[in-house]
């Protein structure tokens, strides 16, 4: 067995520790004897997204946003819509998550059209939502708790076409108002938990691996791994956030 993983726009969507997620996926596949091949698709690449099993999209700085949008609107956007419809497993974080939505509107009313693969949009606010946070993933997806770090000024609103990924237990989530975090549609998982989300949320990492393997091979049982260190890091942050939400 093997998963072909695409790291989309690693040259501009790499804000803080995003590569940790790729590292986590490949190590967990390797430890189970499953092959992993990572392909980086930067700005300007003509390589097709077809043929991949899992796409990862990270978060970015405002500085490179124009460069990114130009590339996106040269056809990458339509390709992403098709990939989502086709059931591709996608993890999109922070800026990458917003990018899969319909548009982003700055707090002074300027609108940027995004990919439109997910029924959601984002509106910029003046204050940033920053800090460690925690959410509980929907029961259908496993009901596990995710800990992470969010740092965004955009407030994301979900349309009826997508489900929230989970409920906020501590922190802000999508917009700091409706108690929801992230989005889930087909096999797409969008979240504000930026940077190294997967290493200390092994349940989430394995959910992505399982989803991608099942799509490719019909069914997949994942051999258990020794996650003592991962769970220790996860549980300690849960305890901290329970004490000081």
């Amino acid at each position: 067995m093997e998963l072909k993983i695409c790291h989309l726009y690693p040259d501009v969507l790499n804000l803080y520790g995003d590569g940790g997620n790729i590292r986590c996926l490949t190590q967990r596949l390797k430890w189970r004897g499953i092959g992993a091949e990572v392909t980086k698709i930067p700005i300007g690449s003509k390589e097709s997204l077809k043929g991949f099993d899992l796409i990862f999209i990270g978060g970015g700085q405002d500085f490179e946003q124009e460069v990114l949008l130009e590339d996106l609107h040269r056809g990458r956007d339509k390709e992403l819509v098709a990939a989502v419809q086709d059931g591709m497993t996608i993890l999109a974080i922070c800026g990458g998550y917003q990018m899969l939505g319909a548009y982003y509107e700055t707090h002074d009313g300027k609108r940027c059209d995004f990919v439109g693969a997910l029924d959601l949009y984002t509106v910029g606010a003046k204050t940033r939502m920053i800090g460690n946070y925690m959410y509980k993933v929907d029961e259908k997806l496993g009901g596990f708790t995710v800990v992470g770090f969010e740092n965004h000024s955009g407030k994301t609103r979900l349309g009826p076409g997508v489900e929230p990924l989970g409920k906020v237990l501590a922190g802000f989530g999508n917009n700091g108002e409706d108690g929801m975090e992230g989005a889930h549609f087909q096999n797409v998982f969008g979240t504000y938990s930026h940077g190294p989300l997967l290493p200390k949320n092994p349940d989430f990492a394995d959910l992505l691996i399982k989803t991608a393997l099942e799509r490719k091979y019909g069914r997949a049982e994942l051999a258990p791994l020794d996650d003592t260190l991962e769970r220790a890091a996860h549980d300690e942050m849960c305890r901290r956030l329970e004490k000081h939400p």
Partner: protein
Amino acid sequence: MSFRAFLAICLCRFLRGFSRLVHRGGTAMPGRWALKVCPDLLSVLARGVKTVAITGTNGKTTTARMIDQGFEDAGLSYFANRSGANLMSGITTEFVMNSTLFGKCKKEYAVIECDEAAAVGVFPQLMPELVVVTNLFRDQLDRYGEVTHTLENIRKALAGISQPIEVLLNADCSLTASLAEDTYHSYLFFGIDKGAVPSGKKSELSDASHCIRCKTEYEYDYITYGHLGGFRCPKCGYHRAEKPEYAVTDVTEQRPDGSTVVIGGVLMEPCVVDVNLPALYNVYNAVGAVAAMREMGIPDETAIAALGKFKCGFGRMEDFALGKGGAKVMLVKNPAGCNQVLDFLQNVKDRFVLVICLNDRAADGTDISWIWDADFEKLCELSGRLEKVIVSGDRAPDMAVRIKYAGVDPRFVETERDYEKLVSSLESEERPIYMIPTYTALLELREVLVKHCGGDEFWV
């Protein structure tokens, strides 16, 4: 001087005296209260003082200590904020302690390192004669925001200095060098020339991959580390200064305890220089410091000798007599600095113990995601020289996970969060020890190290 300023000075001195009575540093707190009484106190005190200010992401303290040594050896009347308190409050405290009660500074010169975000408030009051900008890297996103935001802050800080001054910029940092677009001040460059060191590979995680002017991807003639090197924009033509005023033309030797380099450039006859600290980032600090000392009128021989004898201490490659092989403490704050330390470890010949202390308090940055941008995978290239890794600090479990995913066998990873126990257990260690703490972890760890092995309090 106003009565408010007088009151503020009295209060500041009283609070400082009280702090020392109760064995605290009192480096920033007294100034904070004084500024509440008299918000423009620094401008009153800094008037007439010839100040060199050092700012930028990495290397501020080391560069300041090098200049400090040169000033001392040149016999100048000066003071410096050596404790590392580099915000408005700490800088104000330092000026108060070097002034009379009536606000007259007792020294002719000052060497002041200044936080890159605080500079915008500090510089207009400090009115330095010379500013050194060391470099700009991504750092503590939760506190500073994007690196271009920090750059704009420094631009504003310089624009706030109401007399034309000299500014020394790192030529190899495309972000820093762009400050020279301004025409009010005079800008001079320092850097490392092509061919001085073998060119590094273009990093996949560049902090400045696209042109600051037109957003086209840079091309590079050579790279020293991170995004530093001979950058060139193929579209708008923005490029590294061809002939910096001060340049390292050759790095002749890099040793575990220092480097030998040749410093020359447009304004300087080539000189062989011994730098007292190892690693390439300290070569940048050295050429920046030499440039600053020369521009302040210090003779070449004195400036060069200073680089071979200065002591940085305080967690910058600081040595402690711990265990049989000694311990070296190397502060890390961001991926760029951490990668330089990991590169340095590649050159360690003996088997060693590595201690990593990761905190996530306000001064460290509350977001520890950056440990995944630092290349800890390099620990697996040490071919058996890594005896074990001990993780510590508030976020020790996260560090343990990082090390595991880097490919280090978890059996070689221990956790010890109590610094007292950690240092005691290392007293019988046979191997040399390398300790890499984040800022607030350094403060606590160092206190325990000083207690066990001797050394100065941080404010001395």
